[in-house]
């Protein structure tokens, strides 16, 4: 279809008026192989009646023969052009439709269109990449722990730190809207912790985390645990430079949470099904919760944990240790 006037479709209008062009010296080759050359001024709303005459037609037929004729006519013909060819217009038409927008709005000049083509999160992503390369250079394994409020993140974290504390260097970044209660709970274990208060913000971003990383003076070959703001929505979109997002779902929530908040469970590589010691007292269907998570993210790994009974803790700790050794060995490979 001609994308100036819409001939072939005959529906392009500007402010309700059909677009009219003076075409001169058109040479069309159609899909069926016919070609014609004509000089006329017309309104391309096809099914058109030529009031004006004198067409110079050059036909090339399927059988290879061709003829040329000049005739005077006044006719109404059903002009079924299948205009799916690329024809270059050399006549004096300013083609707004070929501009960066591929379209044009009345009163707007093409020259003042600025092409951006940048991801909205590109700023965050560039900070995240800085964080990621810093972490890689120093062999630090970073995890971004995400969940809804009250899933037992901090308790699980405290137990994790207590179990890892002898032998592994680690640091914690805590994100909450207000208070430094969580950082205080972590510090009580002896691990260095920094609290980020996001104020009205609903998530940590890569810039905040980068700053916190500098302040914490992280050790080489260590573990960085980032406890995000309790929120299953926004933290999914903000890359912090971590190796993995770990989603924590507690069995006191609904089995359908992964379906209700699919972005988060899709962004996560590991799901901890937490508070599993409470399962006997609840109607929570753990299998269904896992199945729902896999519907959103077929590759998600799942570990059933309980900070209270210690269930699954070894598997979780082994998973962390494996990640840490990988980060260390990657550093030595990349550093060479």
């Amino acid at each position, binding site marked *: 279809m001609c994308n100036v006037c819409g001939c072939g479709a005959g529906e392009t209008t500007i402010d309700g008026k059909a677009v009219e062009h003076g075409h001169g010296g058109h040479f069309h080759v159609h899909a069926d192989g016919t070609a014609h050359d004509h000089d006329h001024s017309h309104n391309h709303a096809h099914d058109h009646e030529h009031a004006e005459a004198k067409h110079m037609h050059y036909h090339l037929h399927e059988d290879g023969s061709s003829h040329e004729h000049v005739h005077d006519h006044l006719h109404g013909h059903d002009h079924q052009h299948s205009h799916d060819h690329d024809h270059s217009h050399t006549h004096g038409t300013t083609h707004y439709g070929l501009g*960066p*927008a591929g379209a044009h*709005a009345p009163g*707007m000049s093409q020259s*003042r*269109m*600025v*092409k*951006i*083509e*940048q*991801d*909205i*999160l*590109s*700023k*965050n992503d560039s900070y995240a990449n800085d964080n990621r390369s810093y972490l890689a250079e120093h062999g630090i394994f970073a995890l971004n722990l995400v969940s809804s409020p009250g899933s037992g993140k901090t308790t699980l974290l405290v137990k994790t730190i207590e179990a890892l504390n002898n032998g592994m260097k680690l640091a914690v970044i805590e994100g909450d809207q207000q208070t430094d209660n969580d950082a205080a709970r972590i510090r009580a274990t002896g691990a260095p912790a920094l609290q980020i208060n996001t104020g009205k*913000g*609903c*998530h940590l*971003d890569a810039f905040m985390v980068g700053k916190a990383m500098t302040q914490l003076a992280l050790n080489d070959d260590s573990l960085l645990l980032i406890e995000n703001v309790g929120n299953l*929505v*926004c933290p*999914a*979109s*903000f890359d912090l430079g971590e190796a993995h997002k770990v989603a924590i779902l507690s069995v006191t929530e609904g089995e359908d949470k*992964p*379906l209700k908040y*699919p*972005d988060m469970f*899709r962004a996560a590589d590991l799901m901890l099904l937490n508070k599993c010691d409470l399962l006997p007292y609840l109607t929570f269907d753990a299998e269904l919760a896992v199945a*729902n998570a*896999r*519907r*959103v993210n*077929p590759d998600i790994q799942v570990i059933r944990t309980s900070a209270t009974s210690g269930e699954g803790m070894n598997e979780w700790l082994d998973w962390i240790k494996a990640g840490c050794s990988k980060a260390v060995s990657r550093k030595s490979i990349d550093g060479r």
Partner: protein
Amino acid sequence: MHEMSLAEGVLQLIEDSAKTQNFSRVRTVWLEIGQLAGVEVEAMKFCFDAVVNDSIAQGAELVIIETPGQAWCLHCAEVVNVKALYDACPQCGSHQVQVTGGNEMRVKELDVE
């Protein structure tokens, strides 16, 4: 309300390009938002209007181009359309689908003066 942060990200991109492209007012902003990007279009419009107040984009029209969600179905071995992240393949019902499109959030272009 991460649409607020996203709107701030949009404004940041606009202000950055205002410096490099020398413009002082933005009249229209085109955003491309995928169906699976987790962005609420109405909330985005609301936040954008709030964020651009007293900026070079004050009063600018926000045009959102929504792109369809697409995924690669492992069973069918072809690209299928999906409406949500947890959708099964519309052809075979499998959940073994990898999202391939419709999760973008981009500032496409600006009409400026």
